[in-house]
């Protein structure tokens, strides 16, 4: 029998629909795989065994009765532990939420449940999604399935690693500055950050509200499109949610073709600071696209050079306010210090004990940036930069239908390598941040290996034109897989036992 965990979600869905495979078998195969490799990977903070099997058995029963089912019914999925789920813990990777159970489901989770997709569990992340390596999780780092001594990217390293290690065919991530795309790049998987407002944020624990977006984490571009259509679309609980229909994304992925597509190479997102191997894979990808009939042009986005700096003012500013609610009064950790436990001291002790260093660093940064007398110079200037970045995108999209760049400047680095150097860590997101600053969608697709480690290629599209990402992404995926003779992940080493 085929190893069910090696199938793409689209392939598995076909076998479920034809009843060649039962949903219980599919879920059990993934639970077994988790049991087998997750001790080494640490992708999951919580495994939802009983509920996943229960949902799967319901799917099998309904399917046997001939009920009309969602095409992905019975296809299991992992959910980043930043997204709230009833009946399972949600920690945001932080001690401050240890043991907390949400009384409500995030909108995206409700949509998964409506589609009858069994939830395998909650995946690891940098605390409150703050990081690019998943090393800032309060529950230990996640390891890269390609090399267990290396990071799986972050903040969504758990979701990317789970998918790369065949523990789940699909996962949900969140992307504030690259937390879906950069882990996708360094684990050889696909990650999509939809247009801001394209997927409801209701129930995604906020880091930076104006930048956060939930999106798919998968092994194929088509799978991302399938999942995107499940979770996307207007939600009245999210005021920033777009009212447009989600669009024909699956159709775009199935009709992959770059003939005549104008692809803009962003001059500022390559060269210096980009690892040689990354640059080499990127150049090869451009050649393939050109050969397939794409019109590859160079575009300049001069203000992107300010994106990282502006991001590190806006993101911590919003985060400092969003994280104020974790004070021990209503939910989560409460630390009562010795002596007179006044409310100020309880709040202070709770936050001191409950937050990790990176979270504290960003709260302090943001509090400072918003302070009277500094607001205009910091937050105000950063918002102006944001406008300039949007204008750069607007100009670039007059010359190109989609833009392209490496997703991350380097392949996966070693655990601990950048942990004590926040600025080096922040540089990982230099190519992904502009999309969040402008609200435009982006996708990272596997671009090959450099020194045996995956490289990601990023496409960016104008806001609300997510379908273009699927068209271009699926085309590049097909072109590259032809050269590799199969999926990149087929080249990944077998995962050994516990580390």
């Amino acid at each position, binding site marked *: 029998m085929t190893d069910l965990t090696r199938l793409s979600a689209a392939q598995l869905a076909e076998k479920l629909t034809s009843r060649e495979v039962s949903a219980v078998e599919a879920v059990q195969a993934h639970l077994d795989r988790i049991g087998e490799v997750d001790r080494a990977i640490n992708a999951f903070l919580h495994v939802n065994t009983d509920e996943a099997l229960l949902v799967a058995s319901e799917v099998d029963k309904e399917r046997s009765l001939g009920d009309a089912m969602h095409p992905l019914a019975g296809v299991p999925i992992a959910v980043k532990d930043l997204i709230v789920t009833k009946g399972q813990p949600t920690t945001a990777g932080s001690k401050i939420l240890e043991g907390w159970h949400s009384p409500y489901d995030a909108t995206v989770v409700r949509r998964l449940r409506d589609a009858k997709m069994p939830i395998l569990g909650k995946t690891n992340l940098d605390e409150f999604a703050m990081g690019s390596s998943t090393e800032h999780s309060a529950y230990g780092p996640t390891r890269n399935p390609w090399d267990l001594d290396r990071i799986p990217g972050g903040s969504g390293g758990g979701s990317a690693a789970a998918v790369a290690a065949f523990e789940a065919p699909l996962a949900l991530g969140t992307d504030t500055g690259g937390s879906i795309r950069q882990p996708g790049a360094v684990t050889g998987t696909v990650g999509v950050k939809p247009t801001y407002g394209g997927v409801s944020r209701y129930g995604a624990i906020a880091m930076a509200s104006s930048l956060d977006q939930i999106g798919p984490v998968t092994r194929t571009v088509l799978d991302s499109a399938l999942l995107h259509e499940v979770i996307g679309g207007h939600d009245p609980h999210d005021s920033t949610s777009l009212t447009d229909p989600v669009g024909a994304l699956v159709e775009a992925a199935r009709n992959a073709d770059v003939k005549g597509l104008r692809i803009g190479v962003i001059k500022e997102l390559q060269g210096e600071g980009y690892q040689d191997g990354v640059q080499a894979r990127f150049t090869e990808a451009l050649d393939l696209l050109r050969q397939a009939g794409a019109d590859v042009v160079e575009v300049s986005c001069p203000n992107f050079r300010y994106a990282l700096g502006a991001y590190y003012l806006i993101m911590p500013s919003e985060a400092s306010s969003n994280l104020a*609610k974790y004070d021990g009064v209503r939910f989560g950790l409460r630390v009562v210090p010795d002596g007179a436990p006044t409310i100020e001291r309880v709040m202070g002790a709770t936050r001191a004990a409950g937050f990790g260093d990176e979270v504290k660093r960003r709260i302090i940064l943001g*509090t400072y940036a918003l302070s009277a007398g500094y607001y205009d110079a910091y937050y105000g200037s950063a918002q102006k930069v944001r406008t300039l970045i949007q204008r750069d995108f607007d100009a670039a999209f007059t010359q190109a239908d989609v833009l392209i760049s490496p997703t991350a400047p380097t392949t996966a680095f070693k655990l601990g390598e950048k942990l004590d150097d926040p600025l080096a860590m922040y540089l990982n997101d230099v190519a992904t941040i502009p999309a969040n600053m402008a609200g435009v969608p982006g996708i990272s697709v596997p671009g090959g290996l450099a020194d045996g480690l995956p490289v990601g290629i990023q496409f960016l599209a104008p806001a609300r034109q997510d379908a273009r990402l699927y068209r271009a992404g699926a085309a590049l995926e097909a072109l590259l897989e032809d050269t590799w003779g199969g999926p990149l992940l087929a080249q990944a080493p077998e995962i050994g036992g516990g580390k």
Partner: protein
Amino acid sequence: MSTATADILSFEEAMEKFDPVLGFEVHVELNTRTKMFSSAPNAFGDTPNTNVTPVDLGLPGVLPVINRVAVESSIKIGLALNCKIAERCHFARKNYFYPDTPKNFQTSQYDEPIAYDGSIDIELADGTVFTVEIERAHMEEDAGKLTHMGGATGRIQGAEFSLVDYNRAGVPLVEIVTKPIVGAGERAPELAKAYVAAIREIVKNLGVSDARMERGNVRCDANVSLKPKGQEKFGTRTETKNVNSLRAVEHAVRYEIQRHAAVLDGGGTITQETRHWHEDTRSTTAGRPKSDADDYRYFPEPDLVPVVTDDAWIEKLRSELPEPPAARRKRLQADWGYSDAEFRDVVNAGVMDSIEETIAAGVKPATARKWWMGEISRRAKVADVEPAELGVTPALIVELQGLIDSGRINDKLSREVLDGVLAGEGTPTEVVAQRGLEVVSDDGALLEAIDGALAAQPDVADKIRGGKLQAVGAIVGGVMKATRGQADAGRVRQLILERLGVEG
């Protein structure tokens, strides 16, 4: 409690030396069905922490959604205050840690209020009109309610622990801020009271708030500063918080004027701070120091999109506005023909609306006033409720007055009938029947009673026969007593005279 009632100057002396400058921040709780940013019920007095959703508790992952009705109510308030309405405005976050604020920030409007640059005319008791300029009216959410337990004073100092009720958290508020009010002079306390009364009346008339100060629906923070006579520059202000009755507004402003005057007169300086009003001692005590540099780290609320208005929407809301209270009062007084004093009493008794409805039901203005200012107000006072809350309907008054006009009952009996109706015994006609209150119109029965009364007071009967007609009253009284008041006194008198053969 620190009762250090600071030295104060007499009000007259204060006024000789200083000009007061006032400013008000009035918070109006809107009576929308649901809260400002969630679907939780907006209701007063329910079991603590029952009117809450994850949004109101600030749970991880939640997002706010603006209540459109609250925006419409805010626009109506802006229009009623003759404000400009913003074409586009934003909410901001006001960041501070306090346990009654679930997110540890308040979602409020900051640099872009929904309404701005307005004014209203405030009429004082003697007819003097002051124009108060409105700086802005902005939308925000209320905080929860803290109850401090275990201490003697009910305050946080000395309390062992505090309870927090988030039912009020997220209730929509409109904060109305005046520009500095200069030139009120000795009328300042009176103007303060009249201004808050006018705001309360306006929002009640608009139907956007229950406007009950005792429930905190309308809350006033009163800013006071003094400047020496002739000086242009404003003095340092204090902000007296949560002065929650009209009388307290007047007293608090008067007190702060006198306190400031004493400090300044003694060569001291006023500390910019909040003050707490104490109804028992009729004085204020220092709260926390307040400076213009309080750092709330405001920034635009990224979870909400801007509120965008357009002319069609605003004009639709404008067309729905009720007649302004002041204009309405003028019109009603003229229509009803009440004197200034009569009308003022009606307004002060809170029965203007009831009288209007009663007149609309077909009762004459004078008669309507007789009922509402008389029997109904008297009963309301005894029951300690508002007259309109007694349950007296215009239809009831129509029926009662009809019974009087047709002679079936008299004024005195009508009071008993009203008692019966209010006791739930049925309609006036039913009460008349059940209690047997109808005027005795059977002459036979009356004559029997008259004979009895004459026999009981033969000396009086002789006086009448002798021409002393004023003595008839004693016999009439006897008859009324015998018939338990159910006789028509005029008819009784006529029958007595006929019986005694005396010309009336």
